[in-house]
Protein backbone atom coordinates (compact mmCIF):
# COMPACT_ATOMS: atom_id res chain seq x y z
CA UNK A 1 0.00 0.00 0.00
CA UNK A 2 1.35 3.40 -0.93
CA UNK A 3 0.71 6.07 1.59
CA UNK A 4 0.64 9.71 0.55
CA UNK A 5 3.69 11.28 2.15
CA UNK A 6 4.07 14.99 1.48
CA UNK A 7 6.66 15.75 4.15
CA UNK A 8 10.07 14.19 4.15
CA UNK A 9 11.22 14.47 7.71
CA UNK A 10 10.18 11.86 10.25
CA UNK A 11 10.41 14.35 13.09
CA UNK A 12 8.21 16.77 11.20
CA UNK A 13 5.60 14.02 10.72
CA UNK A 14 5.64 13.27 14.42
CA UNK A 15 5.32 16.90 15.46
CA UNK A 16 2.44 17.42 13.04
CA UNK A 17 0.75 14.31 14.42
CA UNK A 18 0.97 15.65 17.98
CA UNK A 19 -0.08 19.15 16.92
CA UNK A 20 -2.96 18.01 14.70
CA UNK A 21 -4.41 15.83 17.47
CA UNK A 22 -4.50 18.81 19.82
CA UNK A 23 -5.71 21.34 17.25
CA UNK A 24 -8.56 19.26 15.87
CA UNK A 25 -9.88 18.22 19.28
CA UNK A 26 -9.45 21.81 20.48
CA UNK A 27 -11.54 22.92 17.51
CA UNK A 28 -14.21 20.31 18.17
CA UNK A 29 -14.43 21.31 21.83
CA UNK A 30 -14.67 24.96 20.88
CA UNK A 31 -17.86 24.11 18.96
CA UNK A 32 -19.44 23.70 22.40
CA UNK A 33 -18.70 27.31 23.33
CA UNK A 34 -22.06 28.97 23.81
CA UNK A 35 -23.85 25.61 23.51
CA UNK A 36 -22.80 23.75 26.68
CA UNK A 37 -25.50 22.10 28.81
CA UNK A 38 -24.88 24.54 31.66
CA UNK A 39 -22.75 27.66 31.84
CA UNK A 40 -20.03 26.23 34.11
CA UNK A 41 -19.45 23.25 31.84
CA UNK A 42 -19.58 25.38 28.72
CA UNK A 43 -16.72 27.34 30.28
CA UNK A 44 -14.90 24.16 31.30
CA UNK A 45 -14.87 22.59 27.86
CA UNK A 46 -13.93 25.94 26.31
CA UNK A 47 -10.96 26.15 28.70
CA UNK A 48 -9.92 22.64 27.69
CA UNK A 49 -10.19 23.73 24.05
CA UNK A 50 -7.87 26.68 24.80
CA UNK A 51 -5.29 24.41 26.46
CA UNK A 52 -5.34 22.06 23.47
CA UNK A 53 -4.97 24.85 20.92
CA UNK A 54 -2.10 26.23 23.03
CA UNK A 55 -0.38 22.84 23.01
CA UNK A 56 -0.91 22.58 19.25
CA UNK A 57 0.80 25.95 18.85
CA UNK A 58 3.95 24.76 20.65
CA UNK A 59 4.21 21.72 18.37
CA UNK A 60 3.47 23.74 15.21
CA UNK A 61 6.02 26.39 16.19
CA UNK A 62 8.66 23.71 16.53
CA UNK A 63 7.53 21.97 13.32
CA UNK A 64 7.74 25.28 11.44
CA UNK A 65 11.47 25.43 12.17
CA UNK A 66 11.87 22.16 10.23
CA UNK A 67 10.02 23.16 7.08
CA UNK A 68 11.38 26.15 5.17
CA UNK A 69 8.92 28.98 4.65
CA UNK A 70 6.31 27.66 7.05
CA UNK A 71 4.92 29.19 10.22
CA UNK A 72 2.60 27.84 12.90
CA UNK A 73 -0.24 29.51 10.99
CA UNK A 74 0.54 28.06 7.57
CA UNK A 75 0.79 24.59 9.12
CA UNK A 76 -2.62 24.96 10.74
CA UNK A 77 -4.44 26.84 8.00
CA UNK A 78 -2.87 25.89 4.69
CA UNK A 79 -2.52 22.13 4.75
CA UNK A 80 -5.19 19.91 3.25
CA UNK A 81 -6.91 16.83 4.64
CA UNK A 82 -4.37 14.24 3.50
CA UNK A 83 -1.54 16.12 5.21
CA UNK A 84 -3.21 16.03 8.63
CA UNK A 85 -1.96 13.25 10.89
CA UNK A 86 -4.45 13.37 13.75
CA UNK A 87 -6.16 10.23 15.02
CA UNK A 88 -9.67 9.67 13.66
CA UNK A 89 -11.14 9.89 17.17
CA UNK A 90 -10.57 13.63 17.50
CA UNK A 91 -12.19 14.61 14.19
CA UNK A 92 -15.51 12.82 14.72
CA UNK A 93 -18.56 15.00 15.16
CA UNK A 94 -19.29 16.03 18.73
CA UNK A 95 -22.59 14.22 19.10
CA UNK A 96 -24.25 14.83 22.45
CA UNK A 97 -22.56 15.80 25.72
CA UNK A 98 -22.03 12.13 26.64
CA UNK A 99 -20.13 11.49 23.41
CA UNK A 100 -18.01 14.62 23.81
CA UNK A 101 -16.97 13.92 27.41
CA UNK A 102 -16.32 10.24 26.66
CA UNK A 103 -14.09 11.18 23.73
CA UNK A 104 -12.27 13.71 25.91
CA UNK A 105 -11.77 11.01 28.54
CA UNK A 106 -10.24 8.56 26.02
CA UNK A 107 -8.00 11.28 24.65
CA UNK A 108 -6.96 12.81 27.99
CA UNK A 109 -6.02 9.39 29.38
CA UNK A 110 -3.88 8.91 26.27
CA UNK A 111 -2.25 12.36 26.58
CA UNK A 112 -1.70 11.91 30.29
CA UNK A 113 0.37 8.73 29.89
CA UNK A 114 1.99 9.88 26.65
CA UNK A 115 3.24 13.19 28.06
CA UNK A 116 4.32 11.46 31.25
CA UNK A 117 6.74 9.42 29.13
CA UNK A 118 7.60 12.16 26.63
CA UNK A 119 8.96 14.32 29.42
CA UNK A 120 12.01 12.10 29.14
CA UNK A 121 12.38 12.60 25.36
CA UNK A 122 15.91 12.96 24.02
CA UNK A 123 14.58 16.01 22.16
CA UNK A 124 14.67 18.88 24.67
CA UNK A 125 11.88 20.88 23.01
CA UNK A 126 9.49 17.92 22.93
CA UNK A 127 10.36 17.14 26.55
CA UNK A 128 9.60 20.73 27.60
CA UNK A 129 6.27 20.81 25.76
CA UNK A 130 5.33 17.47 27.34
CA UNK A 131 6.25 18.68 30.82
CA UNK A 132 4.12 21.77 30.37
CA UNK A 133 1.15 20.00 28.77
CA UNK A 134 1.07 17.13 31.26
CA UNK A 135 -0.11 19.45 33.99
CA UNK A 136 -3.06 20.47 31.83
CA UNK A 137 -3.83 16.92 30.68
CA UNK A 138 -4.10 15.95 34.35
CA UNK A 139 -6.93 18.46 34.87
CA UNK A 140 -8.65 17.36 31.67
CA UNK A 141 -8.42 13.71 32.70
CA UNK A 142 -9.90 14.40 36.11
CA UNK A 143 -12.71 16.47 34.68
CA UNK A 144 -13.62 13.99 31.93
CA UNK A 145 -13.31 10.93 34.24
CA UNK A 146 -15.73 12.53 36.66
CA UNK A 147 -18.20 13.29 33.89
CA UNK A 148 -18.08 9.73 32.56
CA UNK A 149 -18.85 8.45 36.07
CA UNK A 150 -21.54 11.06 36.65
CA UNK A 151 -23.38 10.14 33.45
CA UNK A 152 -22.79 6.40 33.68
CA UNK A 153 -23.96 6.29 37.29
CA UNK A 154 -26.68 8.89 36.71
CA UNK A 155 -30.17 8.45 35.29
CA UNK A 156 -31.41 5.78 32.88
CA UNK A 157 -31.26 8.43 30.15
CA UNK A 158 -27.69 9.54 30.84
CA UNK A 159 -26.51 5.94 31.15
CA UNK A 160 -28.15 5.01 27.84
CA UNK A 161 -26.61 7.99 26.08
CA UNK A 162 -23.17 7.16 27.40
CA UNK A 163 -23.64 3.56 26.28
CA UNK A 164 -24.55 4.72 22.78
CA UNK A 165 -21.52 7.00 22.70
CA UNK A 166 -19.30 4.12 23.77
CA UNK A 167 -20.52 1.76 21.07
CA UNK A 168 -19.92 4.46 18.47
CA UNK A 169 -16.52 5.69 19.68
CA UNK A 170 -14.81 2.51 20.86
CA UNK A 171 -13.63 1.43 17.39
CA UNK A 172 -11.69 4.71 17.10
CA UNK A 173 -9.69 4.25 20.30
CA UNK A 174 -7.30 1.57 19.05
CA UNK A 175 -5.47 4.03 16.84
CA UNK A 176 -4.34 6.11 19.83
CA UNK A 177 -1.96 3.37 20.95
CA UNK A 178 -1.14 1.75 17.58
CA UNK A 179 2.22 3.15 16.48
CA UNK A 180 2.72 4.79 13.11
CA UNK A 181 6.01 4.21 11.37
CA UNK A 182 7.32 7.65 12.32
CA UNK A 183 6.59 6.93 15.98
CA UNK A 184 8.52 3.67 15.87
CA UNK A 185 11.49 5.22 14.09
CA UNK A 186 11.72 8.08 16.57
CA UNK A 187 11.08 5.82 19.53
CA UNK A 188 14.25 3.96 18.55
CA UNK A 189 16.10 7.23 19.01
CA UNK A 190 14.32 7.95 22.32
CA UNK A 191 12.72 11.05 20.77
CA UNK A 192 9.18 9.66 20.60
CA UNK A 193 7.31 7.21 22.77
CA UNK A 194 5.99 4.03 21.22
CA UNK A 195 2.31 4.47 22.12
CA UNK A 196 1.83 0.69 22.31
CA UNK A 197 3.84 0.86 25.52
CA UNK A 198 1.32 3.11 27.24
CA UNK A 199 -1.64 0.92 26.26
CA UNK A 200 -1.61 -1.05 29.49
CA UNK A 201 -1.77 2.08 31.66
CA UNK A 202 -4.39 3.60 29.39
CA UNK A 203 -6.55 0.49 29.63
CA UNK A 204 -6.18 0.32 33.41
CA UNK A 205 -7.47 3.87 33.66
CA UNK A 206 -10.41 3.10 31.37
CA UNK A 207 -11.26 0.00 33.41
CA UNK A 208 -11.09 1.91 36.68
CA UNK A 209 -13.48 4.63 35.51
CA UNK A 210 -15.78 2.27 33.61
CA UNK A 211 -16.25 0.17 36.72
CA UNK A 212 -17.58 3.20 38.59
CA UNK A 213 -19.63 4.28 35.57
CA UNK A 214 -21.21 0.81 35.12
CA UNK A 215 -19.90 0.59 31.57
CA UNK A 216 -18.48 -2.41 29.83
CA UNK A 217 -15.93 -2.40 27.08
CA UNK A 218 -17.58 -3.58 23.84
CA UNK A 219 -16.72 -7.13 22.84
CA UNK A 220 -16.45 -6.35 19.14
CA UNK A 221 -12.81 -5.39 18.88
CA UNK A 222 -12.54 -4.20 15.25
CA UNK A 223 -10.54 -0.96 15.26
CA UNK A 224 -10.47 1.80 12.65
CA UNK A 225 -7.18 3.42 11.71
CA UNK A 226 -5.59 5.58 9.05
CA UNK A 227 -5.69 9.09 10.52
CA UNK A 228 -2.06 9.02 11.59
CA UNK A 229 -1.14 8.35 7.96
CA UNK A 230 -3.45 11.01 6.53
CA UNK A 231 -6.42 8.79 5.65
CA UNK A 232 -9.37 10.46 7.32
CA UNK A 233 -13.11 10.21 7.75
CA UNK A 234 -15.32 12.58 5.80
CA UNK A 235 -15.60 14.80 8.88
CA UNK A 236 -12.12 16.32 8.79
CA UNK A 237 -12.74 18.10 5.49
CA UNK A 238 -15.73 19.89 6.96
CA UNK A 239 -13.71 21.03 9.98
CA UNK A 240 -10.94 22.36 7.78
CA UNK A 241 -13.43 24.11 5.51
CA UNK A 242 -14.69 26.11 8.47
CA UNK A 243 -11.36 26.55 10.27
CA UNK A 244 -9.31 27.48 7.20
CA UNK A 245 -11.89 29.48 5.29
CA UNK A 246 -10.61 32.92 6.20
CA UNK A 247 -6.95 32.25 5.37
CA UNK A 248 -7.91 30.53 2.13
CA UNK A 249 -10.24 33.33 1.03
CA UNK A 250 -8.05 36.21 2.24
CA UNK A 251 -4.45 34.91 2.24
CA UNK A 252 -2.26 36.50 4.89
CA UNK A 253 -5.22 38.24 6.52
CA UNK A 254 -4.58 39.53 10.05
CA UNK A 255 -6.76 41.32 12.57
Amino acid at each position, binding site marked *: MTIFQPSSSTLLDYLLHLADNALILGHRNSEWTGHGPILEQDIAISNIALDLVGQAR*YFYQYAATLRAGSTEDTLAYLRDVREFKNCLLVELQNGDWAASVLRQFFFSAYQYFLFGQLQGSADATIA*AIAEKSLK*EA*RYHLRWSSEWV*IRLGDGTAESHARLGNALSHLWMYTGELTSPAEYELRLADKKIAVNPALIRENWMARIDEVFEQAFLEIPVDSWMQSGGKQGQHTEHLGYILAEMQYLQRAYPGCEW
Partner: protein
Amino acid sequence: MQTLPEIWNMLQDVNDPEVPVLSVVDLGIIRDVKSDGKNVEVVITPTYSGCPAMNRIEWDIKAMLLENGFAGVKVTTVLSPAWTSDWMSEEGKQKLKAYGIAPPHPVLSVCDSRLFQEEQAVQCPQCGSYSTRLVSQFGSTACKALYQCNDCREPFDYFKCH
Protein backbone atom coordinates in the same frame (compact mmCIF):
# COMPACT_ATOMS: atom_id res chain seq x y z
CA MET B 1 22.09 53.02 32.44
CA GLN B 2 19.57 50.76 34.11
CA THR B 3 20.71 48.03 36.46
CA LEU B 4 19.07 44.61 36.67
CA PRO B 5 17.28 45.36 39.96
CA GLU B 6 15.88 48.52 38.33
CA ILE B 7 14.59 46.48 35.39
CA TRP B 8 12.94 43.99 37.75
CA ASN B 9 11.39 46.98 39.46
CA MET B 10 10.03 48.29 36.15
CA LEU B 11 8.50 44.89 35.43
CA GLN B 12 6.44 45.33 38.60
CA ASP B 13 4.45 47.85 36.54
CA VAL B 14 3.44 45.33 33.88
CA ASN B 15 0.22 43.68 34.96
CA ASP B 16 -1.54 40.50 33.97
CA PRO B 17 -4.35 41.83 31.74
CA GLU B 18 -6.78 39.22 33.05
CA VAL B 19 -5.94 39.66 36.73
CA PRO B 20 -4.83 43.30 36.68
CA VAL B 21 -4.05 43.37 40.40
CA LEU B 22 -1.07 41.05 39.80
CA SER B 23 2.16 42.12 38.13
CA VAL B 24 4.05 39.70 35.91
CA VAL B 25 6.66 39.50 38.69
CA ASP B 26 4.03 38.62 41.33
CA LEU B 27 2.72 35.93 39.02
CA GLY B 28 6.15 34.30 38.84
CA ILE B 29 6.30 34.16 35.04
CA ILE B 30 9.49 36.23 34.68
CA ARG B 31 12.24 33.62 34.71
CA ASP B 32 15.26 35.75 33.87
CA VAL B 33 16.36 39.24 32.87
CA LYS B 34 19.60 39.91 30.98
CA SER B 35 20.88 43.31 29.99
CA ASP B 36 24.02 45.10 28.83
CA GLY B 37 22.50 48.46 29.78
CA LYS B 38 21.28 49.25 26.26
CA ASN B 39 19.57 46.05 25.27
CA VAL B 40 17.49 43.80 27.40
CA GLU B 41 16.19 40.26 27.18
CA VAL B 42 13.30 39.11 29.35
CA VAL B 43 12.64 35.39 29.66
CA ILE B 44 9.02 34.50 30.42
CA THR B 45 7.09 31.26 30.85
CA PRO B 46 3.36 30.80 30.24
CA THR B 47 0.99 29.90 33.07
CA TYR B 48 -1.26 27.70 30.89
CA SER B 49 -0.65 26.72 27.26
CA GLY B 50 -3.92 28.27 26.18
CA CYS B 51 -3.60 31.48 28.19
CA PRO B 52 -4.63 34.20 25.72
CA ALA B 53 -2.94 36.85 27.85
CA MET B 54 0.60 35.73 26.97
CA ASN B 55 0.85 37.64 23.68
CA ARG B 56 -0.49 40.77 25.33
CA ILE B 57 1.96 40.41 28.22
CA GLU B 58 4.84 40.10 25.76
CA TRP B 59 3.79 43.31 23.99
CA ASP B 60 3.30 45.15 27.28
CA ILE B 61 6.79 44.17 28.47
CA LYS B 62 8.34 45.30 25.18
CA ALA B 63 6.45 48.59 25.13
CA MET B 64 7.31 49.39 28.74
CA LEU B 65 11.04 48.72 28.32
CA LEU B 66 11.25 50.62 25.03
CA GLU B 67 9.56 53.59 26.70
CA ASN B 68 12.20 53.38 29.40
CA GLY B 69 14.93 53.95 26.85
CA PHE B 70 16.19 50.52 25.90
CA ALA B 71 17.37 50.28 22.29
CA GLY B 72 16.62 46.61 21.85
CA VAL B 73 14.09 44.53 23.74
CA LYS B 74 13.70 40.81 23.29
CA VAL B 75 11.14 38.63 25.03
CA THR B 76 11.88 34.91 24.98
CA THR B 77 9.48 32.17 26.04
CA VAL B 78 10.66 29.03 27.83
CA LEU B 79 8.44 26.07 28.75
CA SER B 80 10.70 24.16 31.12
CA PRO B 81 10.64 24.11 34.07
CA ALA B 82 6.88 24.43 33.76
CA TRP B 83 5.23 27.28 35.65
CA THR B 84 3.70 26.43 38.99
CA SER B 85 1.43 28.52 41.18
CA ASP B 86 4.07 28.04 43.91
CA TRP B 87 6.07 30.71 42.09
CA MET B 88 3.49 33.34 42.90
CA SER B 89 4.90 35.80 45.42
CA GLU B 90 3.46 36.14 48.92
CA GLU B 91 2.71 39.75 48.10
CA GLY B 92 0.86 38.58 44.98
CA LYS B 93 -1.24 36.18 47.06
CA GLN B 94 -2.22 38.98 49.43
CA LYS B 95 -3.14 41.23 46.49
CA LEU B 96 -5.30 38.49 45.00
CA LYS B 97 -7.17 38.00 48.24
CA ALA B 98 -7.80 41.71 48.64
CA TYR B 99 -9.08 41.73 45.05
CA GLY B 100 -11.65 39.00 45.82
CA ILE B 101 -9.86 35.97 44.38
CA ALA B 102 -8.81 33.18 46.75
CA PRO B 103 -5.02 32.66 46.36
CA PRO B 104 -3.59 29.24 45.42
CA HIS B 105 -2.70 26.68 48.06
CA PRO B 106 0.80 25.16 47.99
CA VAL B 107 0.93 22.59 45.18
CA LEU B 108 2.33 19.61 47.09
CA SER B 109 -0.36 19.64 49.73
CA VAL B 110 -3.35 19.42 47.43
CA CYS B 111 -2.63 18.80 43.72
CA ASP B 112 -3.25 15.32 42.41
CA SER B 113 -5.52 13.49 40.03
CA ARG B 114 -7.86 11.69 42.43
CA LEU B 115 -11.48 11.92 41.37
CA PHE B 116 -14.19 13.96 43.03
CA GLN B 117 -11.78 15.42 45.55
CA GLU B 118 -12.19 18.95 46.73
CA GLU B 119 -9.27 21.01 47.85
CA GLN B 120 -9.52 21.39 51.56
CA ALA B 121 -10.68 24.61 53.07
CA VAL B 122 -10.43 27.21 50.35
CA GLN B 123 -11.13 30.39 52.26
CA CYS B 124 -13.84 32.76 51.06
CA PRO B 125 -12.10 36.04 50.17
CA GLN B 126 -15.27 37.98 51.04
CA CYS B 127 -16.23 36.82 54.55
CA GLY B 128 -13.25 34.64 55.53
CA SER B 129 -15.28 31.46 56.02
CA TYR B 130 -13.65 28.11 55.32
CA SER B 131 -17.01 26.51 54.59
CA THR B 132 -16.95 26.73 50.79
CA ARG B 133 -17.67 24.38 47.91
CA LEU B 134 -16.28 23.76 44.44
CA VAL B 135 -18.73 24.69 41.68
CA SER B 136 -16.44 24.01 38.71
CA GLN B 137 -12.76 23.20 38.23
CA PHE B 138 -12.68 25.66 35.35
CA GLY B 139 -13.58 29.26 36.08
CA SER B 140 -13.50 32.52 34.18
CA THR B 141 -9.96 31.78 32.98
CA ALA B 142 -7.89 28.59 32.74
CA CYS B 143 -6.01 29.45 35.94
CA LYS B 144 -9.08 29.74 38.14
CA ALA B 145 -11.76 27.44 39.57
CA LEU B 146 -15.23 28.56 40.57
CA TYR B 147 -16.25 28.29 44.23
CA GLN B 148 -19.15 29.36 46.35
CA CYS B 149 -19.17 30.27 50.03
CA ASN B 150 -21.65 28.26 52.12
CA ASP B 151 -21.91 31.07 54.69
CA CYS B 152 -22.15 34.37 52.83
CA ARG B 153 -23.34 32.58 49.64
CA GLU B 154 -21.04 34.68 47.44
CA PRO B 155 -19.56 32.91 44.41
CA PHE B 156 -15.83 33.54 43.99
CA ASP B 157 -12.80 32.57 41.93
CA TYR B 158 -10.04 30.43 43.38
CA PHE B 159 -6.66 30.77 41.67
CA LYS B 160 -6.01 27.05 41.52
CA CYS B 161 -2.80 25.31 42.40
CA HIS B 162 -0.99 24.12 39.31
